[in-house]
């Protein structure tokens, strides 16, 4: 018997509502789980074991990293070792039945975020097919599930031009298989779950980076990747200059300036007008919970920044922090005149993959989310030099690796 809206509201108010979170050891999932625990909710994490450790041990490592004070709220956390891609989630009949009656809302964070067509099968399974396993669970006979919160991305807009509204749209053109599978995932959940009387919220975010106040993060892709690569190259050439006479550096046009600045001749192709929409994880979780708590009926929200950054902004932050010169944006014509060197080939390859997000011309309408967030005085922090530096310094301190899951 699914519960009623009033019952859910009462449960939420009394912090009795139980959230089942998938992908709970991932970046978004773990932050969401911790934020919910901190707000007093009950949380069940459905996660798979690691290669050598159990699901519980993985979660313990993650909780250590979050430094939850006095491990407050941990009594309200339960870990279920399961596999979202298996029938019955890989659980015994008894455990499955037991789990199905335990929660009131599902927050589905588990996803594969690769952009590679070669991983299509994996993406289709993770981002579309697995959803039916969750539907089966939410719809089983002793389910008390009222809500399905689907974590998605504003990039389900695909190649849609103009403003992307907080509604479901129909499109067939995507930049990559990630966008495509997340798009189909959204359509699946809104049809299938709602058909069974389960409310569906879709939360579409832009690119989420680390904590804007502490710089902490457990995922270092998108924004972090080119910085990591640039620093690696800087160190490599510096090493060549200081230890091996710098022959290879000269060949590449890399030099060490007198003030210790390293010059890396790297042009990144920029298309006019594009920018990158970035939000920090602390804003994301606050906004997400606020939107969730205000929702009793199916809805779609965009969690985005109203101040996207250009590639030039980011290059500027980077230059200031790392004393690396030579990075600049250049036009296609400029590349036709002077062919790309190896460093540029590398960075432009990266841009080929991440280009749609870095040189993004799509507009994301967020009025629906904004209305709620404004009332609660929740605002996206500016991605400025300080925040950039904080985040990158943290990444370096943990060697660009997930500090709990390696």
């Amino acid at each position, binding site marked *: 018997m699914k519960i009623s809206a009033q019952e859910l509201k009462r449960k939420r108010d009394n912090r009795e509502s139980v959230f089942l979170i998938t992908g709970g050891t991932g970046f978004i999932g773990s932050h969401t789980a911790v934020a919910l625990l901190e707000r007093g909710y009950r949380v069940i994490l459905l996660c798979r074991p690691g290669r050598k450790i159990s699901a519980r041990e993985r979660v313990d490592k993650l909780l250590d990293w979050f430094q939850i004070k006095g491990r407050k709220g941990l009594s309200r956390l339960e870990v279920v070792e399961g596999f979202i891609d298996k029938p019955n989630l890989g659980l015994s009949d008894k455990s499955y039945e037991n789990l199905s009656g335990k929660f009131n809302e599902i927050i589905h964070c588990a996803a594969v975020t*690769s*952009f*590679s*067509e*070669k991983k299509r099968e994996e993406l289709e399974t993770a981002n579309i097919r697995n959803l039916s396993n969750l539907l089966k669970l939410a719809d089983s006979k002793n389910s008390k599930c009222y809500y399905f919160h689907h974590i998605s991305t504003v990039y389900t807009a695909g190649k849609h031009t103009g403003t992307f509204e907080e509604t479901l749209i129909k499109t067939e053109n995507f930049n*990559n298989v990630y966008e495509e599978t997340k798009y189909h995932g959204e359509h699946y959940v809104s049809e299938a779950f709602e058909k069974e009387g389960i409310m569906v919220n879709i939360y579409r975010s832009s690119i989420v980076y680390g904590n804007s106040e502490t710089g902490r993060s457990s995922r270092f*892709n998108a924004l972090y*990747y080119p910085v*990591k*690569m640039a620093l*690696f*190259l800087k160190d*490599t*050439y510096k090493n*060549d200059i200081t230890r091996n006479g710098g022959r*290879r*550096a000269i*060949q*590449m046009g890399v030099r060490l300036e007198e003030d210790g600045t390293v010059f890396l001749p790297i042009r990144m192709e920029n298309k006019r007008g594009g920018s990158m929409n970035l939000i920090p994880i602390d804003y994301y979780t606050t906004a997400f919970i606020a939107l969730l708590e205000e929702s009793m009926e199916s809805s779609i929200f965009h969690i985005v920044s109203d101040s996207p950054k250009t590639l030039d902004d980011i290059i500027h932050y980077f230059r200031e922090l790392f004393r690396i010169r030579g990075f600049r944006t250049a036009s296609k014509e400029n590349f036709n005149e002077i*062919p*790309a*060197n*190896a*460093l540029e*080939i*590398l960075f432009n*390859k*990266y841009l*080929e*993959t991440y280009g749609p997000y870095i040189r993004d011309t799509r507009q994301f309408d967020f009025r629906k989310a904004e209305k709620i967030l404004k009332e609660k005085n929740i605002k996206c922090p500016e991605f400025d030099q300080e925040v950039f530096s904080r985040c990158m310094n943290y990444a370096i301190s943990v060697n660009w690796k997930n500090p709990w899951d390696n």
Partner: protein
Amino acid sequence: MISKEAAGIAAQCRHYAMCKIDFLQTGLCPPGENNHYVSYYPQGRMDLYDALAKGLIPVTERLVDIADTCTLCGICDKQCHFVTELRPMKVMRALKEYVDSHLAENKKVVKIEEDDILRQFKKIVGEKNATNDPAILVTYSNDPAPMAKPQMPQYIVLPSNRDEVKDIVSICNKFKIPFAVRGNGSSVFGIVMSEGVVLDMGRDKEITIDRDNWKVNTGAGVSAFDLQQEAEKNGFRVNSAEPSAIVCSNIMCSGILSTFSNTYGTGADNYVDAEFVSNKGEAFDLNDKIGPNLFGFDKQGSPSPGICTGASIKLHKVTEDEEGIGIPFSSFDEAAIFCRDLSHRRIGISIAMLGGEYISTFISPTSDLAEKVKTLFIETLGIKFLVVVIGDKYAVETIKKMTPVTIDDKLFRLMMLSLPQMVEGEWIEMLGDIETDVNLFELFCKEEMYPLLETVLDPSPESIGAIVPEDLRDFYTQLYSRPEMTNLAWLSTFRILSSRMGRFKHVVAFIGYAPLDKLEVIKQMIGEFKRIGDKYELKHDYGFITPVDLGKRAILEYDFYIDHTDPAEIQQMLRAMGEAGPMIGELSQKHKGIQWINTILFQGFSRKENFLYR
């Protein structure tokens, strides 16, 4: 006292006979070179220690001599480590110690009395070159081939020319003693053993270049490596197989199957003439007007026509601008079609399409590295197949125009000398994180990337030295400083790396011909081998494809791997062979152009037209 550790190593010898050729310029095992019997080479000494450990032989006069003549020079350790990662020196020391303590304790040294037959053999080949000493006999009594059961011969005889062979065969026939000829290494079918006489042709090392006739006269004991080396010195190349294979034995068994068969041909294409002694003891030549027709081919298989006592092999010109080039592919079809296309268009001399397993095993000096290189190639870079072509500069230039990226000589050298950095480095991992939809090799192998790769990977012979045991470090560093060790053309010609495929376990190669115009048939064959390998729980893998006769046909190799010391695995292997044979037979009924090793056996002199197009 038998050392368990040494006995363990000794049992692992694969009989690849790489210790019988000087492929690393270390020099040859001195007593081996002086005495010719395999028993004096490291390979035979491994077998001897294994036999002592199993209690198969007593300490005999010859055993004492064999142990005594080992100088503990360490050559075998370098050679064997290069191929198999085994350290035979432990066995050599243990063998010496065993014999020394036997003598110190005044224990008996067995002397086997001569009989009349042995005296007759000695009369033909000289006192030193015929024996019935069990220490020698036992080293000719086994073969890691799964079909071979050990057979202890009565005599080993080392003839040095055709007349001696004739006389030996006559004696064998007179006394009704069976005989067999031993090549250098192991055989697939174990046909190199006999209860009677084993002839080891290793003394006949004649190599005479006949420039005017574009041929080289080759004695019955000449290895492919030695022949190729001599040809190279004179600006030529011969088509030859594995470096340690005895050329004449190789021709007798299967004909020469190599990646150069793409242009140099196969079967009768490779020889100008050959001389034989028939099983009755009569001499005949390939070119005789009246005599056995070895050019013909019998689909039902054929018995051995006798003993090949020499052959004149065709010489081919090598131009100075020859280079190697690799073309990476992520799909079988694309790679195979590319190979075929090259052959149709007559681009390149040698063409081979290697699998990721092969290539990573060949280029990695240790198995540990090979595993990582395999993951790097296949999973990270997306190189599932590598088409390796040797050609002149025009061919190489053309290939570069035909395909977006290649692994040219320069990049190959760079990769060879930085493999350890490539597999360990976070940088390659970082490259993988770009997640492009194209295969990573398309980025990695771009010529513009070379300067960056050089900086990041910092290739050097020292990096190879750093991954081998301490005492071999300097040796490997010097070895990899030599240009030929990282030169695709040289490595493809001399094939010194391919024996590394036996490093994991002994290899049983299924080799034969297939129709290159029908890729679906080739894929079906590979699929069947795979199915059989899985069924019998044997490690197995695709080996290589080489186009033959301008891309109409192909040589196809598929490999099974077994621990030849494990009876259970041998049984599984025999079952697998029992199933693979009929499978190939059935397919060859249905499709033209399929011929397999079991029918080719002893028909290596046939005209290819007689077995590829009927």
